[in-house]
């Protein structure tokens, strides 16, 4: 009897599988099929920390201002205009008429105040309080010493006034990031956190559906203040395909319309094969080698650091190992961000000079130098880079031990190493700005005590320059100060820039209006694009 029942059940299941029609309620029907490597961890703008999540956040949520597509220029969004006081400390925003959340409720100045306060709230589990730190009274509010936040006030139903502790020129850039997203209080004050599953914003797309581990679909928000193009993209279905080779085959078969992160070793072939689909742009990301400035041989030894900088063939790494996707970096701030140096400057690679500097540093031919420990996360490309750097350093007599770890262990090692112990001497690091401004890009990495200053670099001259630049109102003076900061870091060999990231994208040619963003694929303004056929 049991056997018969089991057989019966098996037959029913097999029948159901056999009767299924592939694609009958599939995301294949939607206008744009976007390959994502993994599901997003958090669809809450104040918790999202990864680029996967940001791809949704940028479409689901609007802020007062936004980045113009393909640029870092800030333009009006929910606010149609704003005024900045002459001292650069007070920003008055005027909201548009007719703006609504996805649940249909009109947006008011009180919603803006709620959202910004939420971004500075520990109980809301915000990870964006450093973004909003320039607001007056933010530190006391964040530390829960007070419930008053004088830095933001609704002075009318459509007027919001923000006051800063000190002038902070990139403040509009901060508000254009995810930290400036506006959310409805009635949804986001729910202690059950249902908004994590069904986010509600006011962006050009609203949350439509989710198939766990398989896809998420967003639909066009028809009441959005931005008018949709005639042949605009009505739906975007994010399909989770982990492996880049598998994603590439799906693209070739026509099952996805957009992908990035091409499989390694295939760039030239894909570029040729899919010339009309292939797009490339520069990103504001830097791959660099950091030194341990707190202990070990590089501490207080600028000459030795310079020797290593001259020994590494960054052009080879970019041309051969990175397949030409990236750009060899000759300074720290990426091209496109204010304060960046001249692109195309000559590479530092000069083994003869490196050997001479080794003698000057007191380690001729590497004699007397302890073993150098190099730390990196073990992505395939980074393993090859580590091998190349070992070869380059070996050419000037330096023995290097490579320590490759999975990302979690690498982060642990990077952030918890004991300065007095047998520490890592060199570490590979990918860095991108939380908001695209050198204050964030350099400050966190190199200012004394900065959250991303893993090598414990400390230079009072740099600290002073960064503080001055952060509060400087005049754009030209500010840019000059960041150029000086960049030059100072290079002269001091505080790090070795390897390359600025480039990004390859594949998009079917029937889609027009693509303006890749230097921030990353997550910031593409799909709502302004069209499908021609």
């Amino acid at each position: 009897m049991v056997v018969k029942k089991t057989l019966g059940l098996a037959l029913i299941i097999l029948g159901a599988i056999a009767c299924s029609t592939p694609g009958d309620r599939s995301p294949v029907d939607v206008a744009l099929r976007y390959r994502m490597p993994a599901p997003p961890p958090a669809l809450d703008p104040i918790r999202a920390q990864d680029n996967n999540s940001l791809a949704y956040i940028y479409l689901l949520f609007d802020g007062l201002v936004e980045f113009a597509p393909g640029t870092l220029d800030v333009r009006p969004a929910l606010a149609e205009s704003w005024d900045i006081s002459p001292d650069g400390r007070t920003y008055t925003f005027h909201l548009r008429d007719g703006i609504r959340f996805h649940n249909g409720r009109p947006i008011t100045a009180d919603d803006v105040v709620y959202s910004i306060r939420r971004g500075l709230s520990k109980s809301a589990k915000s990870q964006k309080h450093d973004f909003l730190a320039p607001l007056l009274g933010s530190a006391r509010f964040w530390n829960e010493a007070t419930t008053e936040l004088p830095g933001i006030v609704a002075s009318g139903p459509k007027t919001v006034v923000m006051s800063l502790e000190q002038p902070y020129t990139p403040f509009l850039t901060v508000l254009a990031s995810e930290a400036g997203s506006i959310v409805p209080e009635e949804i986001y004050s729910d202690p059950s956190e249902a908004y994590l599953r069904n986010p509600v914003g006011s962006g050009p797309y609203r949350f439509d559906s989710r198939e766990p581990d398989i896809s998420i679909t967003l639909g066009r928000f028809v009441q959005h203040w931005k008018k949709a193009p005639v042949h605009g993209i009505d739906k975007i279905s994010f399909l989770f395909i982990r492996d880049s080779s598998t994603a590439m085959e799906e693209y070739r078969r026509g099952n996805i319309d957009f992908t990035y992160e091409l499989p390694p070793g295939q760039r030239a072939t894909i570029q040729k094969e899919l010339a009309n689909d292939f797009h490339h742009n520069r990103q504001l990301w830097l791959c660099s080698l950091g030194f341990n400035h707190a202990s070990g041989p590089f501490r207080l030894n600028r000459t030795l650091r310079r020797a290593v900088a001259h020994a590494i063939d960054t052009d080879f790494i970019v041309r051969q190992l990175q397949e030409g996707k990236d750009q060899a970096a000759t300074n720290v701030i990426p091209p496109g961000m204010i304060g960046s140096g001249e692109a195309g400057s000559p590479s530092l690679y000069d083994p003869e000079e490196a050997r001479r500097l080794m003698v000057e540093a007191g380690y001729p031919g590497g004699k007397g130098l302890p073993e150098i420990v190099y730390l990196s996360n073990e992505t395939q490309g980074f393993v090859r880079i580590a091998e190349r750097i070992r070869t380059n350093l070996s050419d000037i007599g330096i023995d290097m031990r490579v320590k490759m770890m999975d990302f979690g262990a690498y982060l642990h090692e990077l952030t918890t190493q004991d300065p007095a112990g047998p520490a890592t001497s060199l570490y590979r690091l990918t860095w991108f700005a939380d908001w695209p401004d050198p204050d964030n890009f350099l400050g966190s990495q190199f200012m004394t005590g900065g959250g991303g200053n893993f090598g414990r670099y400390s230079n009072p001259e740099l600290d002073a320059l960064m503080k001055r630049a952060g509060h400087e109102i005049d754009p030209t003076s500010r840019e000059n100060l960041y150029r000086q900061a960049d030059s100072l870091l290079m002269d001091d060999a505080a790090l070795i820039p390897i390359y600025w990231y480039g990004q390859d994208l594949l998009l079917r040619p029937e889609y027009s209006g693509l303006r890749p963003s230097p921030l990353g694929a997550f910031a593409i303004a799909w709502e302004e694009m069209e499908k021609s056929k």
Partner: protein
Amino acid sequence: MTRFIARRILWMVPVLWIAATLVWIFMFMIPGDPARILSGLSADPDVLASVRAEWGLDQPAPVRYGRFLWKLIHLDLGTSYVQQGRPVVEILAAGFMRTFFLAAAATLLAGLGGLLLGAIAAARRGRFLDTTIRTLTTAGIALPTFWLGLILMLVFASRLQWLPVSGYGNGASILGVRLPGLTHLILPSLTLAIFSASYLARVTRASLIEETSQEYIPAARARGNSKHAALIKHALANSMLPVITLLGLNFGGLLGGAIATETVFNWPGVGLAMLSALKSRDLPVVEGGAILLTAVFLLVNLAVDISYAMLDPRTRG
């Protein structure tokens, strides 16, 4: 038989506790801070501290272990650190069911293919067909699954375009569980089945050859059975014990997640979920998953032992 089953089920409790404790210790020991991974490279110390406090990671090890066991006893696996707001049970259940369908299809294919090939090879022992099957099954065992999956995909999906490249497909739903698309199931289950079928064919062949040398086979022939009837009715039935064991263990192993195959074919199963969770130190998912998979493996083993006991009462112990 009831006492036999009850005793085996009771034995599962300490085994599960040991497995859970080992997994907890390993996850405690491996470097990597879940709060840091989730919060990013430049995370603010305040934010890190509040995330750790929320998850109880700031507590001493005995307290954390005690809480872990307490929740486990109450069958509470918690919510994922990474997929925020999603219960671990939901993540594991969804992944497990998808892996179950894949494993069942692969085991079915492996069972049919392995038995058939093994029986043919035994019947044609020493002849061309036997040599061919032995050569092919050696290759089937030796080929790496990841590579084999990619080759099958490139040939049947990319080149010939007969089958989908990857994914779960859109099957019908039964009791809220969505079934995979039939065409989507073929390549990943075939990838998994090739290894198992090859192994099974060799075991079946060896087992059949051994059985055919037993005295009861000439006796069966003497009672008028043909050579093939004696082989199928008597020798095959008696050689089933190792075959069933192998199939059962293979099925139990596949339920643990066929990570390489799930990765190549983007099959959203439990293996892929566990791998992602391990990389991001999503402790509740890794711990819950390890316990679930241990329990499943023990249950499958129990089922194998029951079938063993039914086939051969001497093994009931």
